[in-house]
């Protein structure tokens, strides 16, 4: 790939006995918005910090624009970082915080002034130059941290869970704003989050990680619709994960019923995970060939109702815009292409 900007090659990382990254391979394209997504402890922040140069991998190589940068210290890398807790300089005011990098690179003072003001207007904080950073709200500090990084015209911006400390409404606003900034500047953003919705909203590419390994790399639509394993399916949105058996190609059995599906290539009668999104069930009149069960409870969620339907030993999570009375006996219909068959995940090797 010729528009590759960053390449991670067999990156492994251990702290003493504990291995936090296991042979990570990843290509980051120029000008894309890529998100590392995963639960805490999955290695996403460590991966970001290796790219930034703040941590050094135990083995493996990092390339930037075709150059090996394993031994390049952070202050010589062509990227800037927005830190989790902003890490603003409390002894400097807003202007001097943003000008920090430009002063180090000996930029003429009049150009600094121009660029700082442009950045402040981009993050909607014009007129804040003389304010003390400690007097700003969390959201404002966040914007200053973004401006301080972007004013240096980096080719890549690293963002380490930057929206984690903000309230929901502000977070949504910042998501839209960050995406707009990324597109306007046309640079690469590498974003770390544990929030799947945030990842789906902003990214061009999502890298789902767990236990120091990459589980899946794909577009938001790709990983949502075609999760490669039960973990990804469950982490990206809600899912029903049911034990099933793949009778033969395009036929599977779960919950005591046999269904057509669109997957093939499994061994005959191989035990599998069957993954069905709660919104892919349709509630219909009960009949013999489909799953039938009793509505156990119902919760209003705004756009839809969330119901649990108990059928034998299995309880299905169902999302529907039409409510059903608790205790009703209902049928659950599902289209063959909404039944996702996944190999049983191997027991964790650690």
């Amino acid at each position: 790939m010729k528009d590759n900007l960053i390449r991670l090659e067999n990156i492994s990382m251990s702290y003493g006995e504990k291995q936090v990254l296991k042979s990570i391979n990843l290509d980051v394209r120029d000008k894309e918005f890529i998100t590392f997504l995963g639960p805490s402890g999955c290695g996403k922040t460590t991966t970001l910090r290796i790219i930034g140069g703040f941590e050094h991998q135990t083995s493996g190589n990092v390339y930037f624009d075709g150059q090996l940068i394993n031994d390049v210290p952070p202050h010589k890398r062509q990227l800037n970082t927005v830190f989790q807790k902003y890490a603003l300089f409390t002894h400097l005011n807003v202007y001097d915080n943003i000008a920090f990098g430009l002063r180090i690179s000996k930029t003429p003072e009049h150009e600094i002034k121009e660029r700082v003001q442009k950045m402040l207007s981009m993050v909607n904080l014009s007129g804040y130059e003389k304010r003390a950073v400690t007097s700003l709200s969390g959201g404002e500090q966040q914007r200053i941290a973004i401006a301080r990084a972007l004013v240096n015209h980096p080719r890549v911006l690293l963002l380490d869970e930057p929206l984690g400390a903000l309230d929901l409404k502000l977070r949504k606003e910042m998501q839209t704003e960050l995406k707009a900034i990324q597109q306007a500047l046309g640079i690469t953003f590498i974003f770390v989050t544990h929030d799947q919705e945030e990842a789906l909203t902003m990214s061009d590419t999502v890298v789902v990680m767990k236990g120091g390994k990459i589980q899946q790399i794909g577009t938001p639509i790709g990983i949502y619709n075609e999760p490669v394993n039960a973990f990804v399916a469950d982490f990206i949105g809600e899912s029903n994960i049911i034990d099933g058996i793949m009778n033969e190609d395009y036929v599977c059995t779960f919950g005591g019923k046999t269904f057509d599906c669109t997957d093939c290539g499994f061994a005959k009668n191989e035990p599998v995970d069957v993954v069905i999104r709660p919104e892919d069930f349709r509630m219909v009149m009960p009949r013999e060939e489909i799953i039938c069960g009793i509505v156990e409870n119902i919760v209003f969620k705004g756009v839809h109702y969330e119901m649990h339907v108990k059928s034998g030993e299995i309880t299905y999570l169902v999302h529907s815009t039409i409510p059903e009375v608790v205790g009703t006996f209902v049928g659950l219909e599902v289209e063959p292409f909404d039944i996702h068959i996944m190999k049983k995940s191997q027991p964790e090797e650690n």
Partner: protein
Amino acid sequence: MKKFRIAALPFAVYAGIFIVAPIILIFMYSFQGAGGEFTLENFTRFFNFSDPTYLKVLWRSIYLAAISTVICLLLGYPMAYILSKLPNRIRGILSFLFVLPMWMNFLLRTYAWMTLLERTGIINTFLSNLGLPTWDIMYTQGAVILGNVYNFLPFMILPIYNVLIKIDKSVLEASADLGGNGSVTFRKVIFPLSIPGVISGISMTFMPAVTTFVISKLLGGGQNALIGDLIENQFKVTGDWGFGSAMSVILMVLILAAMQIMQRYEDENDGSGGVLL
């Protein structure tokens, strides 16, 4: 709230008897003549510019304390910095070692220096055994400075160290991220953020150094008397409580003024640090 007020009572009583009352007494004595009448003579005697004996002593006290403080800062800052960079376990042991001498009696420590520095002391015996010239430092200003530095260095190191270890590591990473190498990060981030600790260290070493009388007496001999010795003499030798009190008041005012100036400087900077007064 009421409960807290009751809990504060013992301290209020203590402060009244042992802090406020003595200060009032000292003020009263400082304006009294030998017969108990009101007079300004104690002060005019001190600020006598035609015979500046006492002013010279005051100047010497400030001068020696200032030099001691500067040396403490030059030694203490790098020590505090190195200490703050060490791994936790070693750091604990080393900071313990820095504090350890403070557990020993102050007088004892200073006497120990006498036996080291004396003409026939350990250092000079060692030097002359090696055939080297001896080092006649006892009863000089140098010895007073040495005593000050030795005794007050921990008070410089600890506040600076405390501020340094509280600096968030991510702030240093941010500086590196923005292109700052080690020395830029130190000059533009670490040092400015540690100023509250420096100011607090300066006040904690300068104040005891300017008021000390034990160190100057034991190591400085008679000819290097400081204001502290002078005050001690008024109470213990000449019995002129009025003059002794007046000098105490003058010293107090000077220290208060110095504290105010430093406090103001610190407020301008931030105020998030730990000044101990």
